């Protein structure tokens, strides 16, 4: 509190304050956890000029979202201790009473959240939700006027047929439309500041590009200030004018966006930039270790549901995977890539087509007949938290496929698990530790160790790094490449992140609506995409800008 009052007295010189929309100084947020106190934000200070745009970037746990929440006083009533001064458009956020704070929230500063589906009330029409927020801040507005305003802002953010769609509920909107609706809610009361917390992280790359365009356009039109919190440096690069890099609750580097990206001063910023996968960079050429196809599918189909409700997720896909090669499988959500990936290892039964593994037709086999092949076809899942049983030690989880095969004794299994843990870069004595004791990257290593346990020939990796920070991502991708060379594994790498896929793939398969629209050697597809869909996908990938790439040539110096 003393920090707040001192900031108030020192920041009193009128002229400068009027130009500064947000002024944060010495912000510290502590969370009491058990008997300890976790300091999420540690003495953070920054300014945002009226109409300016600031990007706050950092890896998970850096405190970037916690800092953003403090701008709207959202830590109140959560048990967190907030000290320091936060001023937004002249309001001392930490000193406001409840009613005043409610006036600021949405009225002066509005928040756009990450997951647009869960961030809207599932039971209520979207227009009603916006109208309700509008009437909180415009007391004199009638119900009718509020509803009209909701339609107006929905129309403004590009919802077609807004008057009718305002009556729809969130589940009737697509992901991109939901995010547009959230932005419309933010716009409803004409705030002076938008705080966007990972606003495009849950979206497909082409939709992300549209949402970012919308934000830019709205800012140009209304002069609203923006604080953009993101883990994606590429997203920040094209949308803010200043950049704040956070690590462990502190600002590591802070400056104009081009300066920070092109000439980072701090080693941490340089490491972070170096870890960002680059879509422009070629991968050293590698050939498959054999010409005989390991896995060959023809006309593979999968339908879900029946009759009128039937949905064809994969619609006649043919592809081959040769020993030791990596096939990248990309596409937007709903393209059928995960369904296809699961069918390749026969976690799902195809409803049509042929699936041949080393000459055996696995397509119609029953569980018992599949058993001999199970060990050779493995899978690594997206969410390393959800795909490990939290109540079993990681050693037990890795031992599961070995026990299932039933060929090894207990002692052999234990020593094999230790060997695997070491192989994926974990402590071999970690056998008896539980998933919650590990970080996200380490858990994914456990997932990889489990997949390796029965000595597979093919591993389907379904978005194996999309839940991880860029630096961890780079390490896990590196590990997969290493394992592949060493063990002569064939990999099918399913991902939505085109840059990551480029780093690992020999061949690329692009899917849309359950079909393959383009297929070929990775470099060819990335550099000379033939299909308009592929061209669109590649064009939508946010880049650190050419100058940024150039400056990164020697990150290790």
């Amino acid at each position: 509190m003393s920090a707040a009052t001192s900031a108030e007295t020192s920041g009193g010189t009128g002229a400068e304050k009027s130009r500064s929309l947000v002024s944060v100084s010495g912000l510290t947020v502590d969370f009491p956890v058990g008997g300890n106190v976790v300091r999420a934000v540690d003495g953070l200070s920054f300014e945002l000029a009226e109409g300016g745009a600031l990007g706050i970037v950092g890896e998970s746990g850096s405190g970037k979202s916690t800092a953003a929440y403090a701008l709207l006083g959202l830590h109140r009533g959560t048990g967190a201790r907030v000290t320091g001064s936060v001023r937004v458009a002249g309001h001392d956020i930490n000193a406001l009473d409840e009613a005043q704070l409610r006036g600021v929230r949405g009225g002066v500063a509005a928040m756009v959240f990450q997951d647009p589906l869960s961030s809207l009330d599932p039971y209520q029409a979207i227009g009603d939700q916006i109208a309700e927020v509008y009437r909180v801040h415009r007391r004199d507005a009638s119900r009718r006027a509020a509803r009209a305003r909701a339609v107006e802002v929905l129309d403004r953010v590009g919802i077609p047929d807004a008057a009718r769609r305002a009556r729809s509920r969130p589940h009737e909107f697509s992901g991109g439309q939901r995010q547009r609706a959230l932005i419309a809610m933010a716009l409803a009361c004409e705030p002076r500041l938008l705080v966007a917390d990972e606003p495009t992280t849950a979206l497909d790359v082409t939709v992300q590009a549209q949402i970012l365009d919308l934000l830019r356009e709205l800012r140009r039109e209304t002069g609203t200030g923006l604080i953009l919190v993101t883990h994606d440096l590429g997203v920040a690069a094209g949308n803010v004018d200043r950049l704040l890099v956070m690590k462990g609750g502190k600002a590591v580097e802070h400056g104009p966006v081009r300066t920070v990206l092109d000439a980072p001063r701090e080693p941490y910023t340089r490491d972070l930039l170096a870890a960002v996968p680059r879509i422009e960079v070629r991968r050293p050429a590698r050939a498959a270790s054999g010409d005989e196809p390991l896995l060959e599918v023809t006309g593979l189909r999968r339908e879900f549901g029946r009759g009128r409700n039937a949905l064809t997720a994969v619609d006649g896909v043919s592809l081959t995977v040769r020993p030791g090669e990596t096939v990248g499988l990309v596409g937007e959500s709903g393209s059928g890539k995960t369904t296809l990936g699961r069918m390749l290892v026969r976690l799902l039964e195809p409803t049509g087509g042929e699936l041949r593994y080393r000459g055996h037709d696995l397509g119609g086999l029953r569980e018992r007949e599949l058993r001999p092949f199970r060990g050779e076809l493995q899978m690594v899942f997206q969410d390393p938290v959800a795909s490990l049983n939290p109540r079993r030690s990681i050693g037990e989880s890795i031992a599961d496929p070995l026990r299932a095969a039933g060929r090894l004794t207990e002692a052999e299994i234990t020593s094999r698990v230790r060997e695997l843990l070491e192989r994926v870069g974990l402590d071999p004595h970690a056998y008896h530790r539980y998933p919650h004791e590990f970080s996200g990257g380490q858990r994914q290593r456990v997932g990889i160790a489990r997949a390796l346990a029965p000595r597979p020939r093919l591993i389907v990796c379904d978005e194996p790094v999309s839940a991880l920070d860029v630096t961890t991502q780079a390490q896990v991708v590196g590990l997969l490449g290493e394992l592949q060379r060493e063990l002569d594994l064939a990999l099918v790498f399913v991902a939505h992140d085109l840059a990551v896929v480029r780093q690992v793939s020999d061949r690329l398969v692009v899917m849309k609506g359950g079909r393959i629209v383009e297929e070929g050697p990775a470099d060819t597809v990335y550099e000379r995409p033939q299909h308009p869909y592929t061209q669109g996908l590649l064009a939508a990938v946010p880049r650190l800008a050419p100058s940024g790439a150039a400056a990164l040539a020697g990150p290790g110096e």
Partner: protein
Amino acid sequence: MTGYLLRRIAGGLAVLLVLSVIIYAVFYVAPGDPARLACGPRCNPEQIRQVREQLGLNQPVYTQYWHFLQGIVAGHDYSTGTGTMHCQAPCLGLSYQNDQPVTGLIIQRLPATASLAVGAMVLWLLLGVGTGVLSALRRGGITERVLTWLTLAGTATPVFITGLGLLMLFCAYLQWLPFPSYVPLTDDPEQWAWNMLLPWLALALLEAAKYARLTRSSMLETLAEDHIRTFRAYGLAERSIVGGHALRGALAPVIALSAADFGSIFGNAMLTETMFGLPGLGQLMVTSTKTIDLPVVVGVVLVTGTAVVVANILADVLYAVADRRVALR
């Protein structure tokens, strides 16, 4: 929606049919002779034989069952010794004990039980959901601890203790209320409510704790959801967030549980009915089971079964109305 309802109703009828078959089967293998019990202690074997014939008990069990089904759909003629009596559809047969049509017996008894069940349910929902929401909002405070303790005490106490306690407190000691005697709603609504108040309370106190706990946990879960955070970040007051957004989501499991409980109250209200002298189905069930009065037992079970089926269909429809993402098919 219409198609869904028709399918659900058909399913419900099938359940009731199976239920009636099971009861017939159980009674057929169960020990005891309904004819001897109906005839009375001083009957000689010849009289018992006559009664058995008259009740149709000498016919094979499937014939008896067939007559029962026939009665429901088209009515059935029963001989009463002195002549025949036509029992109009929907006829659930005649009581073995006193030759009265079961349908009439049930219609006589139904209002008391329905009054008890509906009133108690309204009361326990108010009590349970109210305390549940309150303790979710005052989490960790003294209010929550007191409420938790009170509701737990309510559940832990058997209904005959609670009922007795209530009677002693309000009727004998404070003399605020008359000793309950059933007054039909249609005769005098005010007296009906005053007389039903204690039975309602006794049942509601028993059930409220379950609802309080469910509402509390479901409310806390909902309050932690992202969309609640959105409305906080847009300056909505806590009261409109809880009332306008959180409650709706939190009540879904409460709806499901109420449906199940509403049905079981019909069957489980005997104790409360006996306690407070209510002329309801529970009492009828107890006496007719003792005398192996099959037609009455079947009738009562079918009526309570119908209540369960209807309550569940209603709950599913309510679910879909509350949450438009639920598609009824």
